């Protein structure tokens, strides 16, 4: 005991102080602003006709190497039904096999599109690609990453340990798990990032017949969304199809929108923006979702850790020194 009391104190106190002085700045850990080149999707529920073309093509074009649904030895896209025929596919929800789904809201007789009385509306559900993604901050091994340039939140299979903290952390119920696999992966939309190199973009947008989903830079999408909100309902407007700057336009009467672009502020903002004719909470979007950046909540705790370490080590060592002052030569 006599040997190292002093050394121990010194070491402990030194470590503590060093750690306390090196606290990492809070903002450095997650981006707050959307990267200038970031890409995203604008989904306009009033244009959606529920044809599910996006779902089918999402599966098809993501079942190739580097796609969000790809796995080795894959011959077919991962159909929801595992019957040998594989002739029909009607996913009920997002799952380890489906990363994009069209759902419907219906009320009363369901006769009027985009009305919340006796109406119906569609909803396209997939990853929103948060600007400050909770899942990325939550993943203990960095299996989920946010691309610093295009802002896509993507998945690195080789890292994932399958802890599903991303599923818990996501405020939008997006990441899905391959529950039936012995080596399960997390599946989520990765905005078709494997297709960018060949000059392509998200398959759901490319194959959307009405321009309900359009792909483009987030800055452009935000402008487009706000432009639509400013339009007079009933007026004709040439809606771009496929991409936000597309020459291919589909003229249509403007519907009555909810005066809000979902994804501008929610959870600190997302790269997937939504417009709809009925309130977003009816489409399953949490009304009480915070506009704050979710990773900040955790970071508030983590950033205190060095201080705690310093305090405990210094305080503990000091206490030890005081309480053991009479123990010499024990």
């Amino acid at each position, binding site marked *: 005991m006599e040997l190292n009391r002093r050394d121990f104190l010194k070491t402990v106190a030194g470590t503590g102080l060093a750690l306390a002085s090196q606290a990492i700045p809070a903002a450095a850990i997650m981006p707050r602003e959307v990267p200038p080149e970031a890409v995203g999707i604008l989904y306009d529920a009033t244009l959606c006709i529920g044809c599910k073309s996006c779902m089918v093509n999402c599966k098809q074009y993501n079942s190739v190497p580097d796609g969000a649904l790809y796995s080795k030895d894959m011959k077919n896209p991962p159909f929801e039904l595992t019957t040998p025929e594989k002739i029909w596919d009607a996913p009920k929800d997002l799952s380890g096999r489906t990363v994009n789904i069209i759902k419907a809201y219906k009320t009363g007789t369901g006769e009027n599109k985009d009305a919340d009385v006796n109406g119906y509306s569609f909803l396209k559900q997939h990853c929103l690609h948060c600007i400050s993604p909770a899942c990325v901050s939550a993943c203990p091994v960095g299996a989920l990453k946010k691309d610093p340039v295009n802002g896509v939140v993507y998945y690195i299979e080789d890292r994932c340990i399958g802890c599903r903290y991303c599923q818990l952390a996501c405020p939008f119920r997006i990441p899905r798990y391959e529950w039936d696999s012995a080596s399960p992966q997390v599946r989520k939309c990765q905005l078709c990032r494997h297709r960018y190199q060949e000059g392509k973009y998200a398959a759901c947008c490319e194959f959307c017949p009405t321009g309900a989903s359009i792909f483009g830079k987030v800055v452009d999408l935000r402008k487009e969304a706000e432009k639509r909100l400013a339009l007079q309902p009933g007026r004709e407007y040439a809606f771009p199809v496929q991409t936000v700057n597309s020459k291919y336009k589909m003229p249509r009467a403007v519907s009555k929108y909810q005066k809000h672009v979902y994804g501008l502020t929610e959870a600190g903002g997302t790269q997937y923006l939504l417009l709809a004719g009925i309130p977003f909470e009816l489409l399953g979007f949490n009304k009480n979702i915070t506009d704050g950046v979710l990773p900040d909540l*955790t970071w508030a705790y*983590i950033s205190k850790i060095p201080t705690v370490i310093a305090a405990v080590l210094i305080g503990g060592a000091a206490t030890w020194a005081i309480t053991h002052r009479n123990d010499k030569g024990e």
Partner: protein
Amino acid sequence: MTKNNDIKMMTPTTIVLFIILVAGAVTAVYRMLFGLGAATNLNDLWPWGFWIGVDVLGGVAMAAGGFIIAGAVYILNWKKYKVIVRPAILNAFFGYLLAAVSIFLDIGRSFRIWHPMVMWQVSSIMFIVSIHVVLYTTTLATESSPMIFEKLGMKKALGFVNRIMAPVVLFGVLLSTLHQSSLGAVYLIIPTKLSPLWYSNKLPYMFLVSAVMMGLSMVSFETILSARVFKHKPHMEVLKGLARGTLIVICVYLALKVFDLISGAGISAVFNGSFTSNMWLLEMVAGVILPLVLLSMKSTRNRLNSIFVVNILVILGVLLNRLNVGIFGVAEYASMAGSDYFPSWMELIVTAAMIAFAVLGFKVCAKYLDLYPETQH
């Protein structure tokens, strides 16, 4: 005073526990071969269930006694508690072992459990938690190692461990403080999912304080229980001290909870008769109010049986708290989204096997190691 060797291994209880353990092991193998979907009722809206709620959150909370007693004895130099330091640390060791095994089974790609060690993500609470589990399990093993070295007669190693004990314990205290609180911090990121009755930015503190409460009660509980089972006389002074400590911590915890309730969900949220409010009330009444009332009477603190009852109440209350945060607090959210969860029998059997393992392991250690040095000499 009984000799350790008098502890009988082949009691009916032990045999039942052993059977459960084997069944759990077989189930665990099944889970490893066929995946989580085959073995559990977890789903995409219930990514975490019984294993995380009971085995990990509960197990870790139960292990809190280790660092408190070790800290009290080695740092604060409260010699009175030296009699229970070994069982407390062993108990903590088993708690963490269970948590580690549960995590191993619960993560889908178990053989990558080492990934967080090399792929650091400081922004992730889960990373912090996993680092803590590893480090603290090692620390606890170190803290428990003197027993082994004594048994094996390895004087040199024993001497070395004894010499570094103080810093190791301090390190353990640090890790535990961080780890207990960071388990609460895990839930900081789900403000929209967890019921406001439990969600609070003070979750880490509440987890830490309730873990201390639990730890003290657990140590006391287990001292009384093993005294009964192994037929030796418990130290009433130690138990009284633990009871006093529990009382203080309960007061702190209650204050935290009440403050948080008022500043968060509001008092009316507790009495609206909803599912979550009932669970919250049960947790608070069983685990906080009742023990507080009982412990505040001096007669309770002086009577072994009464202390034992309080211990049980506190342990149940904190366990329920962990289940509430881990499972029932998100029930409304998940139900709204159309999902349901009831643990599969495999999840239940594995959890039962974990507990059986801890009990059996403790018993084996009690028989073969010098768990109660002060009692014997």
